[in-house]
């Protein structure tokens, strides 16, 4: 039976992975633009999710993000990634000043009787159309854009790091050029966090949240 569900989901997992990866691409770009990690004129506007989204035109950065997202895509397909974190760090002190966290919850898997039971119990709306998902993503994107209003201004020059949290039954073979990393937490006592909206496909549930350092 498990086998059967797997094959049934194969396509939707693929589609969902694409949606999630795409979401990462646009949200990361959006954050890099909104938080001024890269100069604003490096970004060009594209229409996506019914919103004007900004995508970097910097070839190097583009290639860099592409490499990472390709790996994330792979992990999503393997259902091993549980969280993606975009940490914005000060270039000077290397302190994390902002931490965008995207939790990925792979639904309907690795549960035996439980998942089906809970799905039935909660009456989960099955077969979400892509359009509905897009609407949900749009809301997150709007929130990311709007979050500039409450996030503190980044005064120092900043860089960013993308962290992937993986969780596997067996130790994950490290892909080339990936290393274990520090979680890039913000110093305790100085942190405030805001939960953003979430979206879900039939396979993945994505929950976004931003933590940021506040002044003393």
């Amino acid at each position: 039976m498990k086998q059967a569900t797997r094959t049934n989901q194969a396509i939707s997992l693929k589609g969902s992975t694409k949606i999630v990866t795409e979401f990462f691409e646009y949200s990361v770009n959006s954050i890099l633009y909104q938080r001024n990690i890269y100069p604003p004129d490096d970004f060009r506007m594209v229409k996506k999710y019914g919103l004007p989204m900004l995508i970097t035109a910097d070839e190097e950065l583009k290639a860099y993000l592409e490499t990472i997202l390709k790996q994330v895509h792979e992990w999503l397909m393997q259902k091993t990634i549980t969280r993606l974190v975009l940490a914005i760090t000060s270039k000077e002190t290397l302190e994390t000043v902002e931490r965008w966290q995207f939790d990925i919850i792979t639904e309907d898997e690795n549960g035996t009787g439980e998942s089906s039971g809970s799905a039935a119990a909660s009456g989960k709306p099955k077969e979400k159309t892509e359009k509905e998902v897009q609407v949900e993503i749009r809301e997150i994107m709007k929130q990311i854009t709007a979050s500039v209003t409450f996030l503190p201004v980044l005064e120092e020059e900043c860089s960013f790091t993308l962290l992937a949290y993986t969780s596997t039954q067996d130790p994950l073979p490290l892909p080339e050029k990936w290393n274990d990393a520090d979680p890039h937490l913000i110093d305790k006592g100085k942190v405030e966090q805001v939960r953003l909206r979430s979206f879900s496909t039939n396979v993945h549930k994505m929950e976004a949240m931003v933590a940021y350092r506040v002044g003393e």
Partner: protein
Amino acid sequence: MALDSNLGGGGGKGDLTNPFITKPQASPMKRPPSRPGSAMSGHSRSGMGIGGGSMDIVGDRDEGMMERGRDRSEGEKGAFGGGAGGMKFSTGRNLDRFIPSRSSSVDPALAAGDMSNYSISNDDDYMTNVSLASTNASDSNGQPGAPHTRILSFAAAPPSSSSHNPHATSHLSLSRQYTKTGAAGKGAAAGSSAAAAGKSSRKFPQTPDRVLDAPGFMDDYYLNLISWSCTNKVAIALVDTVYIWNAETGDVTGLHTSTETELPVVTSLNWASDGSYLAVGNESGSVEIWDTDTAKRIRNMTGHLARVPSLSWNGSVVSSGCRDGSIWHHDVRVQNHKVQELRGHNAEVCGLAWRGDGQFLASGGNDNIVNCWDGRIGQSIISNDVNLPSQGPKWQKHNHTAAVKALAWCPWQNSLLATGGGTSDQTIHFWSSTTGARVSSLPTSSQVTSLVWSPHTKEILSTHGYPDNHWTLWSYPSLSKVHEVTGAHDKRILGSGVSPDGCTVVTGAADESLKFWKIWEAKATPKQKMMERDENGAVRNKPSVSMWR
């Protein structure tokens, strides 16, 4: 209370003492019995999450993700059922679209308990995270099949932003450079100190690149005797003969007609947009079309009763302004060449300029009027000479106080038209062709004899007459002076033309000389290269004007 819970909550798991969770065991959790250990911790954590709406970072950092998600969704239900934190929870969950729930300041009602809750969890969280390795190890909650959690990051650092990186994407840095110089140019005009900075980054010519003799160049303000084609040829009229100077080779050809003995004085000339034909207006009122490659006159279109001092091409239509104040559209393809007459001036039409897209024609006259005409010729092509549709101008302006000879459409702002007035006016007005509104005005020190917009920068060049015989480069829209060469010529400058690459301006003056000034630099950004290619492609693809002979 907070302290208690903190003490109790070792490793973020012992939050059973949390004040918001009264009876964790009694709450209707839908947790299957398969994982008793995590069920407890999960529940307590979810309870915390409910209270703050924000605890998640903390509680789950050391937990497997799947577990967490399930915990939360179930935990919410559990909290409601348990009743302890239910009310608070409901407020926290009501998310506004744009105002996300902020952890520490969501609801004043939550304040005390919530804050403490928050900080507790935070501490716990932090502690557990600090010793990440150990938490990872202990993460399993004693379960044998617990997942291995790893935090991974890509080894390479992200590329630094291109502004600090010399090897960054070239077109970006170029365009940045472009905007910078543009800003510097503007700033240069604003203040004298800034002007020095602006000048240092850009060289302005004080002397011409090249000087050509133009013996017999007519010293008549109303005539338009210089035109530079897109094929890089400069046409200049010296009394009764037109000479073509090839800017690439330096060759000069004269356009002679051997048949006529006494030639009328040439009063205007203008290159067709594809550079293959030259329209020549003369004193007798006829408009001639010349093929410059063979140096042959192809057509002679007569009809004007007085001299033709201005010409402008638009596709296969050449428009001629006459001394009697009329403007005619000549369609060079048909036998009855006169397809429309525009009456809007009652004095010599000395300035005529089609907008690049052929939508509007601007004309300036000795009656101090600027007219803007709708470029559509309407039914006139099929109507005969007797029954020509006549139309008034789209808008008419009387702001100038002298003859308007200098007219120029802005290449980078379609609707922008600049017009310059004669000796008693000395003003450049900027108009919006769509609304007819005067956008701005710029007083100068002398008569304005011609205007050239820069295709590369936001600048406009004006040439002037007595007393300084100068040309001035202005930035637009700030209208500040960027550069000026006084005494550019010994006598007043009468006309100008711009090279097809948009870098060099030729000025012709009453001192019977042509001077070439290299004023602008072509910005070779890929985008512009592409645009240039497009333009060239468009020119190439444009069907060349077919002539009725």
